[in-house]
């Protein structure tokens, strides 16, 4: 159907859907036509969705009835969309309904020549400067991820994965690529269940989920509101988490409840999908950070200083990754792409290409990598170097603090650190008390100027803390 609608090999097709079977049909239909699927976040502001559509030249979008209201707002923006599949209403562009698609017989499908090196999907992520960057992945990088993750987690046809992340976040690649490769099953968690943890845990029990993979926040919500005590979830083999550090205290509680599963940390920027793993063999110690872990197969890393020279074992440096699962580059942004890569000219004309993660790490004697913060989460105030993440980990160790975010505010004259905290239901605390708590544990220059209370921390569509919004 897509080729009939003039989708050519290499064309970018938007997927404007939430968790539904149609999403899987869209992903595979687009790739079968030799085209490139571009997930669009229906909860994002219309202007941002329009930016993505224009940036990579999307002419066709696959959507559904539930997204109709949001899509109409996007159509009011200045975009050159030609076709919308999946909405059976009058729109300013050509529409094709799901019913019409269902009428097509499989024998009518056209086979398209494609190479593993061809683009398969583009995932947009927010750049630190504000405009989103389109991370281009090929069939090769997607398939490499599927194979590596299938092998590492020993995924079998009997496995059943719960997919919590939206398509525009690369955690979803396990559900959409790895499971089909292994012959296993992916359960797409409905949006309603993502909002009601007690129903989500019920679904996990009913479906006998064997693999869970999500950001830590989803697991913390299950822990706090999922009524887990009443659920039989012994079918869980793996609990994979990534995208953000998982506070040890919540992780310990969950590991005690689900003691038959192996909890494992997944690390990897979206530009490389995944590059390390760490299986927890024992409960994490109170305030210890969980290691990024070991580098997985078909991947090598470099840890370098500000002069692009390798640092010694135990020293902190920026992590560079060379891997089969790496992106080809950022769509339409040659300069940014060039800056993001480091070329090692081992042999002339056969440079090895590494991706600069912007993450600081150090290597332990047993080759385990340890996270030392983001390059941009390390600031200097009055000459002192401050790790904003360190202040966060001290705050989270407070018995009444559930979640926290620490950020720096900069203006022409000076720079200051502020914190925002979410207290647990039964917690009562004052700003003064929290500052005293911090003063007892941190040097004076690292103390936040203000501590604000809130009932939630602003997060990006991917579920990570939105530091940009906090600074505004």
């Amino acid at each position, binding site marked *: 159907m897509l080729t009939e609608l003039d989708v050519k090999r290499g064309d970018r097709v938007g997927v404007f859907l939430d968790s539904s079977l149609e999403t899987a049909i869209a992903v595979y239909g687009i790739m079968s036509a030799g085209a490139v699927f571009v997930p669009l976040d229906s909860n994002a502001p219309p202007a941002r969705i329009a930016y993505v559509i224009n940036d990579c030249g999307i002419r066709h979008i696959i959507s559904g009835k*539930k997204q109709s209201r949001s899509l109409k707002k996007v159509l009011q923006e200045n975009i050159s969309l030609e076709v919308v599949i999946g909405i059976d209403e009058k729109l300013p562009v050509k529409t094709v309904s799901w019913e019409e698609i269902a009428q097509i017989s499989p024998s009518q499908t056209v086979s398209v020549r494609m190479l593993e090196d061809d683009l398969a999907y583009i995932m947009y992520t927010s750049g630190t400067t504000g405009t989103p960057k389109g991370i281009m992945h090929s069939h090769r990088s997607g398939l490499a991820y599927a194979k590596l993750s299938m092998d590492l987690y020993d995924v079998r046809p009997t496995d059943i994965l719960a997919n919590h992340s939206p398509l525009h976040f690369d955690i979803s690649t396990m559900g959409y690529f790895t499971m089909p490769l292994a012959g296993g099953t992916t359960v797409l968690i409905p949006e309603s269940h993502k909002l009601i943890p007690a129903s989500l845990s019920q679904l996990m029990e009913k479906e006998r989920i064997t693999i869970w993979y999500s950001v830590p926040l989803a697991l913390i919500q299950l822990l706090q509101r999922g009524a887990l005590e009443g659920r039989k979830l012994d079918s869980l083999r793996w609990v994979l988490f990534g995208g953000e550090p998982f506070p040890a205290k919540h992780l310990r509680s969950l590991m005690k409840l689900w003691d038959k599963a192996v909890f494992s940390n997944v690390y990897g920027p979206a530009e490389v999908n995944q590059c390390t793993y760490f299986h927890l063999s024992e409960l994490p110690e109170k305030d210890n950070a969980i290691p990024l872990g070991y580098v997985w197969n078909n991947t090598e890393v470099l840890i370098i200083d500000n002069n692009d020279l390798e640092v010694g074992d135990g020293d902190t440096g920026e992590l560079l990754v060379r891997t089969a699962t790496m992106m080809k580059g950022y769509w339409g942004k040659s300069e940014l792409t060039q800056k993001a890569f480091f070329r090692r000219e081992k042999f002339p004309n056969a440079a090895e290409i590494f991706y600069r993660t912007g993450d600081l790490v150090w290597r332990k004697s047993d080759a385990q990598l340890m996270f030392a913060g983001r390059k941009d989460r390390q600031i200097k105030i009055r000459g002192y170097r401050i790790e904003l993440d360190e202040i966060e980990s001290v705050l989270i160790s407070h018995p009444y603090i559930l979640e926290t975010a620490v950020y720096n505010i900069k203006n022409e004259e000076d720079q200051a650190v502020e914190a925002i905290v979410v207290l647990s239901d039964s917690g009562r605390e004052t700003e003064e008390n929290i500052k005293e708590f911090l003063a007892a544990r941190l040097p004076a220059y690292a103390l936040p100027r203000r501590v604000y209370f809130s009932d939630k921390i602003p997060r990006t569509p991917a579920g990570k803390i939105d530091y940009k919004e906090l600074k505004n």
Partner: protein
Amino acid sequence: MDSNQVIIIKYIQDNLLTGKGEIELTPEDDLLGSGLLDSMGVMRLVGFVEETFHIKIPPEDIVIENFMDVKAITNYVECQHVDNEPSPQ
């Protein structure tokens, strides 16, 4: 539409639908599957129902069946009130 439903609909429209434009909510509109409420909105709604109808909702009752639309919420509330009515002397 009974009076309890009106109260809940007004709360949702006035407080939880910012940024979604003018929406005329009915008791049967899907609150959870259609992107009308977010995670914070659900928690605030639960809090509002507890305060307004003087009930404490245990975590295992905060399930889709009881919160999927305004009608389901009022059904749940009415069941709670019936359970708590003192038996006739």
